[in-house]
């Protein structure tokens, strides 16, 4: 059962491994031997400080983004989707224009106010006079929603395609595997950009369902689909291997129906792979969403995402670089946290995974 997820205790584990008295070690080993693989994995994950740190960071980011409407109403006191080019704010005793006309030299150019490091315009304003911090929080909601939803779509589709191809084999496997090869042969970003351009210009009509061009569902669907081969191929390989394993063969010999083998023996073993992929795919999808939105073919205005805010900031790099830097940092922190969590999940649930990223 080399590919089974059951984590059989090793003699080294049973000998204590630095856990103190032999009796306690034996008791702990007994506990571990009786607990299920999920619980064991979760316990391992909880002991991984880096992964737990990443979870805390992610929870904080999610909470901050969830609180976006409250922040906009009570802290920034502005509508982050409404231009405020002729607005003013009071800092101390000074009343300042949000858009400040340059007074040096020939007096050319009007620059948005920079970071005030206070409630209002904490990170300054963008070129529409909108509060960047408030937009960051709203944008984060969309970035997180898109990366999460596209990850779910990607994993569900990949699990379906990979399992069906690997388990049924034959011509079904040939067709599905070649389809995955074709999809995988396209450079991911080129494929995503092409799909985005087509769908964003016209929207998407599936039978009676009409998805408008500015709907978040469009980037979610595109990103979810383009990464299917990335996950489906290893799942198919794993299912192929499981389908030829001794315990499946034994089940077949005993006359167990195929559907029961699939749901009781194959899928539980594939689930760990899917779980390991989840945070890593979410990080990858967040980067893809940001790239598409930066190119104006992801999230459409007036909605915002971290990618669109970076694009807004591109035109202000010389005068107000914070507009681009802040969402960039948010993406870096979130993606790093997701990657650390992904590593932790993999170490906890799939310690014998051949594919290891980063750690030696």
């Amino acid at each position, binding site marked *: 059962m080399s590919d089974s997820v059951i984590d059989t205790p090793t003699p080294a584990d049973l000998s204590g491994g630095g856990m103190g008295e032999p009796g306690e070690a034996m008791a702990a080993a007994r506990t571990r031997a009786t607990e299920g693989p999920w619980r064991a994995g979760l316990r391992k994950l909880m002991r991984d400080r880096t992964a737990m740190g990443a979870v805390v960071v992610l929870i904080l980011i999610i909470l901050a983004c969830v609180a976006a409407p409250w922040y906009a109403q009570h802290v920034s006191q502005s509508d982050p989707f409404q*231009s405020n*080019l002729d607005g003013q704010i009071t800092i101390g005793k000074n009343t300042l224009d949000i858009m400040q006309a340059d007074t040096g030299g020939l007096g050319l150019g009007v620059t948005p106010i920079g970071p005030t490091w206070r409630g209002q315009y904490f990170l300054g304003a963008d*070129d*529409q006079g909108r509060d960047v911090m408030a937009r960051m929080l709203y944008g984060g909601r969309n970035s997180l929603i898109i990366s999460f939803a596209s990850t779910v779509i990607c994993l569900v589709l990949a699990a379906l395609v990979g399992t069906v191809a690997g388990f049924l084999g034959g011509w079904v496997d040939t067709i599905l595997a070649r389809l995955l090869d074709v999809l995988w042969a396209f450079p991911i970003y080129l494929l995503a950009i092409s799909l985005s351009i087509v769908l964003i210009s016209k929207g998407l009509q599936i039978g009676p369902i009409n998805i408008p061009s500015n709907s978040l569902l469009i980037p979610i669907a595109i990103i979810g689909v383009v990464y299917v081969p990335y996950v489906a191929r290893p799942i198919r390989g794993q299912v192929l291997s499981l389908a030829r394993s001794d315990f499946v063969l034994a089940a077949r010999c005993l006359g167990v129906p195929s559907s029961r083998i699939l749901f009781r023996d194959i899928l539980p073993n594939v689930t760990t792979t899917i779980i390991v992929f989840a945070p890593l795919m979410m990080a990858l999808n967040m980067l893809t969403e940001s790239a598409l939105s930066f190119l104006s073919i992801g999230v459409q205005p007036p909605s915002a995402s971290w990618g669109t805010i970076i694009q807004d900031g591109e035109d202000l790099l010389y005068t107000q670089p914070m507009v681009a830097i802040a969402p960039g940092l948010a993406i870096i922190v979130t993606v790093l946290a997701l990657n650390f969590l992904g590593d932790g999940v993999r170490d906890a649930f799939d310690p014998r995974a051949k594919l290891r990223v980063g750690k030696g």
Partner: protein
Amino acid sequence: MTLRRWLQSSAVALLAATGLSALALPSAADAADHTGGTLRLTSSSAAGTIDPQVNYTAQDWQIFYITNDGLVEFKKDEGPGSNDVVPDLATSIPKPQDGGKTYVFTLRKGIKFSTGAEVTPDDVVASFQRLFKVSNPNAGSWYNVIVGADACIKTPATCTLAGGVVADDKANTITFHLTQPDSEFFYKLATPFGSILPANTPPKDLGTTPAAATGPYMITSNDPQKAMILKRNPYFKEWSAAAQPAGYVDEIDYTFGTKPEDEITAIENGQQDWMFDTPPADRLPEMSRKFPKQIHINPLFAIFYAPMNVNIAPFNNKDARLAVNYAFNRRSAVDIYGGPRLAVPNCQILPPGFPGYKPYCPYTKNPGTKWSAPDMAKAKSLMAASGQAGQKVTVISDDQNTDPQISTYLVSVLNQLGFKATLKVISANIQFTYIQNTKNNVQISLSQWYQDYPAASDFINVLLGCGSFHPGSDASINISGFCDKTIDAAIQKNLVTAVTDPKAANAEWAKLDHELTDQAPWVTMFTPKQLDFVSKRLGNFSYSDQFKVIFSQVWVQ
């Protein structure tokens, strides 16, 4: 003002009053000192075909003005003088005959193309036939007054303009017969579309192949992905300093594919001499503080406006259109564009200073002649009266310069009024034709219009005349689809008046301008100014209302 500053400004004023013309026209000795070198121009992209009878872009028209000539030409001068038409290949401006329906031009002798062949009356006839054969964008609207033009529009391949343009080789004359008087005929001849090319020029768009030149420079190579090179035309001898003066630099290298950000850096570093693109607003403070002497700001006869489709909801409702006009803060749009030094708020069709312009602004807090502030209360009451609140509206913008930002602001204004507005940004390569085609059901968009020549009809008739509205076509420059039969009749009548009484015509244009403004087919936003950022070494900067920078008149050494 300090004493020192006062002395400085007084000295500048005195210099301007006494020596400006001397500065504009350098002495022969000065000219000789500055002759030579390579002028380096840069742009983010090329402007398409370099056929002067096909290309309709400000970018390449600046080039054609120094490579090609028509029978007449706008005077290569600074200030208002640049709007005057002077004889170029023709010896003089002919007097109208037959009530303004016949003009006889006498061709100058001895002028040669860059191929070495002499310019003959047959070349002139062939050039006007070619206008129709190559499907010139304005063949049907500008040159349809020539006798025989109707047949040429129907079957361009066999165009002869029989009886319309007649050459007399012996007398060295060309006679134009028009179906009706046209007060703007000389203007139309003075644009690059009226360039005279050799009779054997292929009757098809030349694409990237240069046409033979008559001016001081000729295009020697052109790769739209990389660069266009111009060198001196070896057969050019100055025949009229007013129409086509000799140039200073020996060569002009025009490179393409550089981002505006990089263009500015290249000019600051002295690697380029001039950039075509509008400098990004983000770089303006830096340029203004560090390189004020290298910046030239000049007026433009242009408008930034948002045409509203008057034939589909919600802007088929006049109250809705008026509401947007009252709500739109023109000062905010000016700020996005670069601030009050670079643009002036405007409410009407004609730009300030243009023939027929009489200041008028009903869409402001204190209606009168000047825009002061938006009137949101009035806008909201008009919006309520329109019953259009909640309607979905898509604003179509291109992706160039500050256009997406201005459009984002427009979306914000529409949402404030109660519309459900969204923005769609599409490539500048297709946006202009996309918004013209009624099949795309564009409700509102952002557009700009720059004068072709100094006549009010170039805005009023071209942009809002019934004749410019072609449903289902990509070439329907009346983007809002506005067609008021009464106003159009007045426009057509005034075009005839302008032939004999330009003053009375301009007074009528002012009246029509105000009537059209009241109908609110657009939100006129502002009139921009031209900002030229040049290298430290570029001297004798010469700016014309028609050509902007006159490349033949600047020097680099």
